[in-house]
């Protein structure tokens, strides 16, 4: 299995388990602490996670859009270099070129990249994205 599919599979697996746990535990302090700590510990090294608290990795080919220096969440800017590198960081691949490539390799979420992402809620920064998604709380 390639890396993108493996990550997608892991996401679906976590979603299954956490959709059972989060609704029950999302108010419990130790659980919240555990979720924040584990998201930081896992998603930071894997995706360069910035803890925006509104994870959309599976919409963007499992590439974190917050890695884009303009924090774009709906697709690439018009400044991508001819070699596919970033306008602002010339030595970095454009986040959205990678996201687009990866999304075509996904099994379930291939077309999710076309969905409109709403503006980021900055008040959720630093909180658990899983709890925000499944527990409905801030």
């Amino acid at each position: 299995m390639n890396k993108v599919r493996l990550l997608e599979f892991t996401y679906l697996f976590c979603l299954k388990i956490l959709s059972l746990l989060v609704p029950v535990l999302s108010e419990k302090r130790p659980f919240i602490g555990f979720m924040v700590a584990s998201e930081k510990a896992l998603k930071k090294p894997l995706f360069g996670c910035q803890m925006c608290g509104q994870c959309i990795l599976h919409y963007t080919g499992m590439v974190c859009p917050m890695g884009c220096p303009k924090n774009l969440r709906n697709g690439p800017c018009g400044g991508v270099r001819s070699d596919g590198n970033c306008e602002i960081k010339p030595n970095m691949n454009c986040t959205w070129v990678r996201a687009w490539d990866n999304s075509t390799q996904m099994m379930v979420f291939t077309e999710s990249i076309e969905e409109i992402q709403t503006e980021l809620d900055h008040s959720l920064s630093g909180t658990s994205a899983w709890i925000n998604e499944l527990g409905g709380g801030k």
Partner: protein
Amino acid sequence: MTNKHASNLAQRLETGLFTVTAEVTLPDSIEKEALASRAHILEPYCDAINITDSTGAVPHFSNIAAASILIENNIEPIIQFSCRDRNRIATQADVIGAHAMGVRNIFCVTGDGVQTGDHPEAKAVFDLDSVTLLTTINHLKTTGKFLSGRELDSKPDFFLGAAVNPFVPPFEQRALRLLKKHRAGASFFQSQYCFDISRFESFLLLLLELTNGSPPPVLVGVGPLRSARFARWLTENVPGVAIPDHIINQIEKYPEKEQKKAGIEACVKIVEGVKNLTGVAGIHIMAHDWESSVSEIVEATGLTKTGRNN
């Protein structure tokens, strides 16, 4: 202008009339006249004039002030808003203020990074992206409410546009990105500088396929290169501008004094190559600091107001 259309530009594009827009270079001046005189050079040749929003991350004349000056001069502006300098609070405040000044055409762009400009130490905002900028203004338009839900006294009547750049990667995705912006509220599109007709054609084919032959109106961005040196600078320093070598070499063949003419000829060729393509609603001329070239391009391509409207 009828009540049905938000603006003259909207009326033209919505009724399928070939449209010419142009960008005015905002002067580093503190006088109204400095801008008005430039806009008057363009006005006889185009249907509306784009006002940029400190493009290239270099501070210029305020976009709202510039648009108001154009309106005072009976010229219809297309005002650009970028995501670089304003958060959602400032953006909503500014667009309704612009509406009060008579602005109807709003063009939403991401904006260049601050690194591009002459204040690279500035803090970039990017609270919104071009798509959420569109959804935010479209929300004001369709509901008459701010994002927070607070109500305005009536609904603003905007005609929203957005940028498309088919000339940089990821190429296969650019038509889909245009359609995402269309779903977010954009009713018309202006492209980045087109120097590569075949690249534009493949983009257009895909767009036509995805929309069953009826895409939203797209104006092709064109512009004259005043010298080979300027062309190199443009392609190396302005994000998103891709100029194929053969175009630069073609201009370079001429002695420096004649390169301006060669630049206009190259631009005319591009306009001729795109103006009749299915799916092209018009052209958008960006003649940076060279307003006088617009008349030559429009006349040479038969796109004067009388030429187009007959």
